[in-house]
């Protein structure tokens, strides 16, 4: 069985997390620039003497699909490396993956990861 780990992280933490996952032997990763907000809802900027709120913040989303057995280790690593302790460190979502195909070879399941 497999799981997809979807983590919303600080863009500045991307390289560190990516390298940490590589060291764990995590085979592939998908990275997307995303925008959103959590509870703290945006930041305040200024323009010519007036303040305004930017409600959606830039974040980075990483997605990895791994075997069930590897999930805990990877989640633990992302939390360890991605944490600053300040508001806005992000979130991790785990969801089940029914199966995986590899397009080049047609392999299926665990072998296709």
């Amino acid at each position, binding site marked *: 069985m497999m799981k997809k780990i979807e983590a919303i992280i600080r863009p500045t933490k991307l390289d560190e997390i990516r390298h940490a996952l590589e060291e764990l032997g995590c085979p592939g990763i998908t990275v997307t620039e995303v925008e959103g907000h959590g509870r703290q809802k945006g930041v305040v*900027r*200024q*323009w*010519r*003497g*007036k*303040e*305004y709120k*930017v409600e*959606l913040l830039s974040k980075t989303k990483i997605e990895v699909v791994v075997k069930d057995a590897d999930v805990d280790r990877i989640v633990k690593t992302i939390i360890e490396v991605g944490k600053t302790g300040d508001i806005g460190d992000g979130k991790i979502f785990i969801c089940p993956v029914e199966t995986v195909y590899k397009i080049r070879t047609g392999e299926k399941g665990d072998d296709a990861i």
Partner: protein
Amino acid sequence: MKTKILTIIAGLALAGCLLLPTVTAAPTSADPSGVNTGTIADVSATNPGKPTLEEVAAVAGHNKVAINIVWTLVAGFLVMFMQPGFAMVETGLTRAKNVAHTMAMNFLIYPLGMLGFYVCGFALMFGGLGAIGTLGGYAGLNHEFTINLFGKSFGLFGTKGFFLSGSAYDVAIFTLFLFQMVFMDTTATIPTGALAERWKFLSFFIYGILVGTIIYPIFGNWVWGGGWLAMLGQNFHLGHGHVDFAGSSVVHLTGGMIALVGAWIVGPRLGKFNRDGSANPIPGHNIPMAVVGTFILAFGWFGFNAGSTLAGTDLRIGVIATNTMLASATGAMAATLWMWIVRTKKPDPSMMCNGMLAGLVAITAPCAFVNSVNACLIGLIAGVLVVEAVYFIEGKLKIDDPVGAISVHGVNGAWGCLALGLFADGTYGDGWNGVAGTVKGLFYGDSSQFIAQLIGITSNFIYVGLISFIIFKLLEVFVGNRVDPDTEIGGLDVPEMGVVGYSGVKLDKHSETPIPKELFTIGQ
């Protein structure tokens, strides 16, 4: 022939040996140090090497005018380079979706304004100027249309020099045209900032023709072309008449007034004001561009102010250029610190730029007449004034000026003229506008000069305000001043110009003000 040349050379050599111990003949060998180039041999004389006093004087006179013409032309080239400065400041402080439109206005105003000035603007402004003293004294521009009131004549506009033809086909007059044309174009490009991001290009185009042919030249004639404001001194003993050395009123106040009336009539950008009248910020897309543009303007300003002597031989240029430089610094510092300490507690870069430009605008009229301490003070006040004017125009007048053109050019143009009437220290300007004695302000003993400055500013408000009002109202009726709301929200680039300014670049939606439908105040 050969013998003759040999005789001349022999004569020259002899003259050199016998008469003058220094080098007198054309150099016969390379001159790496430069001390031997340019000798008596370079003075045209019937008897080479032995010019008469008259021959020496003729060369001295020719050289003096040549220095003045070269100076005026080079200064004009510098002022021409202020056009990209304006383009960059205005485009940087506005949104990415309108860059092609904003840049195109700043670009096209150059040829448009120039051709209008060539056809008739120059003639209306300078056609009655008379002799141009520093450029050789030829008086080809010698007819002013005047009316008589209270037994005094009031010059209203000139009538010589259309198409630079007839008696205007003259080196001095062509030089004056080049220099004055780039000044007019400075005025012309000021309103494009205040009306940016919503001005219909056709309306702008027609404005561009009118500004160089009529709006600017008429007021210009009153101050610089020998018109009635210049004659306030001779006619009514008000100082030296309205004095504006390089254009705080003629150029900047005029541009600022057109911008004020235009921005008021055309209305604010969608989403700028909420229903309750409060204003939303609409962030510009490129601060680096605005900063570089500001530096280009500050550079061009040396030509603007120091060039306005129309004379490289008038060594007051040292004082003028330095005063200009100092006021730009105090203006920038004042705006920066005012924002940092008093207003938002941040040293806002866009206000830094406005502050430097405000200092430059304010020192433009008085630059030749004040000492360095007062130049610094004038810039300092300008820097605070510009920030407060930005708040006032947006917060109280509810007029949307995306780049602060009204605050920079209008408010500080007026301040600069008043500053001359306060701080002119009597060290310069003997005989200015035909009035004997130097130019003195209120603090140096001549309160009538201050009154002349007030009259100049007031007549600018009335004339430029009125003619701009009429023109924008007529444009409203015949072509429409404003793009439709869909164009405005989607960006003017494609609907108005047919191109996108940043093709292939994904625009950051944070640079756009979110406009909830209920916040629309116009266009409904």
